[in-house]
């Protein structure tokens, strides 16, 4: 386990893997998004109550799933980075944050657009809306910590504390807002013990879109991580170029 972790701690090795995976992830994102949107917007039926506005579901629900998934990835990467001082885990957490924040924002905006025709209001203090809004601010706090600390390795470790404390609090926040108000949101309708309560014609585009979002995430996070490593290498090279000059002068 530990050996495998260290094998992938090498940025050079990450670079070769990322170079191979990024085109594949990008291509799958385009294909999945194409099929997903076709099924979502054209080939799936309108809802008998909501009409065509049900199609917002296909962009909204996967975004909300990704909001949760990205925060979980951040937390796992943060723990790995904190315990094993794993540089790639640190960078993975850092690069995931803005993408997760955008998915969270997308979930909020599409939810608001969906809420107007179905619930009759742009915004309601529904428990899920509220907890996703709070999640959005957890993302912003995490990003702000990275911005505020110049030293990368210190920033990584302090941000990891912020992320994990936030992660511990996610279920507490969820529980408290559930208690706070019984919501407008429907109960879980996909992951249920007795099977999904959504018809398969709607489930297919939903899952295609979810896979497309995951491919988009994989593609973007790898590009962002490569950028981060390139930036650090550049900073090291610039520092390195300054230092020999001064030694030459001193000699």
């Amino acid at each position, binding site marked *: 386990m530990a050996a495998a972790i260290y094998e992938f701690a090498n940025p050079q090795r990450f670079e070769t893997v990322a170079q191979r995976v990024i085109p594949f992830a990008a291509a799958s994102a385009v294909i999945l998004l194409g099929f997903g949107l076709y099924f979502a917007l054209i080939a799936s039926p309108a809802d008998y109550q909501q009409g065509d506005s049900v199609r917002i579901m296909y962009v909204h629900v996967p975004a909300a799933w990704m909001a949760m998934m990205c925060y979980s990835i951040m937390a796992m990467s943060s723990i790995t980075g904190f315990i094993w001082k794993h540089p790639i885990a640190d960078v993975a957490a850092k690069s995931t944050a803005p993408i997760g924040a955008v998915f969270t924002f997308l979930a909020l905006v599409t939810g608001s657009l969906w809420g107007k025709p179905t619930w009759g209001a742009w915004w309601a203090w529904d428990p899920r809306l509220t907890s996703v809004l*709070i999640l959005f*601010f957890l993302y*912003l*706090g995490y990003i702000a*910590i990275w911005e*505020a*600390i110049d030293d990368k390795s210190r920033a990584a470790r302090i941000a990891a504390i912020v992320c994990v*404390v936030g992660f511990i*609090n996610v279920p507490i926040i969820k529980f408290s807002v559930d*208690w706070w108000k019984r919501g407008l949101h429907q109960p879980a309708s996909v992951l249920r013990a007795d099977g999904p309560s959504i018809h398969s014609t709607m489930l297919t585009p939903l899952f295609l879109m979810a896979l497309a979002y995951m491919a988009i995430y994989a593609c973007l996070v790898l590009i962002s991580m490569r950028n981060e490593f390139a930036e650090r290498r550049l900073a090291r090279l610039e520092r390195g170029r300054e230092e020999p000059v001064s030694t030459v002068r001193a000699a």
Partner: protein
Amino acid sequence: MRVARAIVARDLTLAVRAGGGTFQAVLFLSLAVIIYALAVGPDVGTLSLVAAPVLWASALLATIVSLDRVFQADFEDGSLDVLVETSDTLSLSVLAKAVSHWLSTGLPLVIAAPILGILLGLEPEGYLPVAASLAVGTPGLSLIGALAAAITVSLRRASILVTLLTAPLYAPVIIFGVGAAKAGAAGEALYAPSMLILAAISLFAAIVAPLAGAAAIRLNLD
């Protein structure tokens, strides 16, 4: 333990003598309550409906603005370095800092809140629940706040960061705090469970915040 007691004694002396936090927190609470009252309007019926939430929200904001006092001065004059070097259990020292923050800020808020409740037309049966819920909930605010203060102690723009970090984590505290205060005033059965959950949040914070706070301080002072 001896170190922890010394920290609490020192911080309380500083808070009382150096024109410190106690007065500021109560002043902030009073001003916030007045601003809310001015915003809501003079109708006592409306005000008494929002009295408990306004008191809780004001106490929460008063806590947030007081958080820079937890570690900032000690960081600037170097005593935080001494604390890190000398105490073998830094987390206990962080707990002590949170306790002294609560004693100098939270406790005065607990006492002042019911009195300010009079201004807001709080029902007499609401005084005790408001004070009790604040007494159980504000330690959680101080502990989570001390963690945020520890995380940001060496950073630029620390105050906005502290607000950004604490506000989401305070959400459960204010939900159950206001829930308890309202249920208690109305004599509802939800009073006891809300108070218990509030206590659970504070106790949970008493475990997590000192450990994480100590790690954050070590990183900040590296």
